[in-house]
């Protein structure tokens, strides 16, 4: 049975400017766990999909390249999007009750990505993030957000 009106954060994807996935975290997974290859396919699909949505929006908008995807909703989940000036793309999937997460994504970028990744002298730009501090601190912060529930909605 589902817990009605329960807020939930499902997953976070970070892509670099060429579309490679440099970070992925997930919480409350309900679909079967994929193997590494399926995982890779999923990242490629998400990256391509976000890119095509971006093209779609810039063509339809009067602001052209200055317009950007804010979020999209389906009947079951919502995806919030934030692209930095350097081309890093952050996408977070949540349930439908979670309101706009742009501020959180901006915060995520400046407080964690910039601090633990960009400022890390051992990090090569555009590669997969391996700094455990990034993942741990990000995880702790996400779990403290009001949008994150501790009880999975599907049992």
């Amino acid at each position, binding site marked *: 049975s589902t817990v009605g009106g329960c807020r939930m954060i499902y997953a976070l994807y970070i892509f670099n400017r060429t579309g490679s996935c440099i970070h992925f975290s997930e919480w409350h997974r309900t679909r079967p766990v994929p193997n590494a290859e399926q995982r890779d396919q999923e990242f490629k699909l998400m990256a391509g999909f976000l890119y095509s949505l971006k093209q779609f929006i810039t063509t*339809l908008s009067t602001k052209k390249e200055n317009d950007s995807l804010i979020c999209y909703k*389906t*009947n079951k989940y919502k995806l919030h999007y934030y692209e930095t000036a350097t081309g890093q793309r952050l996408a977070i999937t949540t349930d439908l009750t979670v309101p706009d997460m742009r501020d959180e994504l901006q915060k995520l970028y400046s407080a964690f990505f910039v601090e633990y990744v960009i400022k890390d002298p051992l990090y090569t730009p555009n590669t997969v993030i391996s700094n455990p501090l990034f993942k741990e601190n990000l995880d702790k912060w996400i779990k403290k957000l009001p949008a994150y529930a501790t009880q999975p909605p599907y049992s």
Partner: protein
Amino acid sequence: MVVYALWVINKTGGLIFDREFASGLPELSTNAFLKFASAFHTQHAIAAQLSPVPDCKGIEVIEAECFKLFCYETPTAIKFIVITDSTVQVVDSLLRDIYQLYSDYVLKNPFYEVEQPIRVEHWETKLAQLVGEWNV
């Protein structure tokens, strides 16, 4: 609150109707619209594939800075897509009314073949009236 345009897409992703009701979108050729319809059709399906939870049906709303796009997919896989300005919150009733008009004036028209481009005068008149009420 402005409704800029309506698109109707058939179950294979073909654009069967497009109408602009208010200016606010860039000038685009018919070809561009056909490409869009097909692109959206694919995106709608991919969003369902990428869902973190089961039973996802596809995109219902896209929010950009300058506009919003709302999609209603009927049980027969026809998609009604309405593009509005960014102040609009909800267009459920408009989409249902459009579907109603489609059922009454398009589907019940004996000369209309399903999945084909819609060229039915009554539908266009009624539609213009309906959207006119929204755009006041």
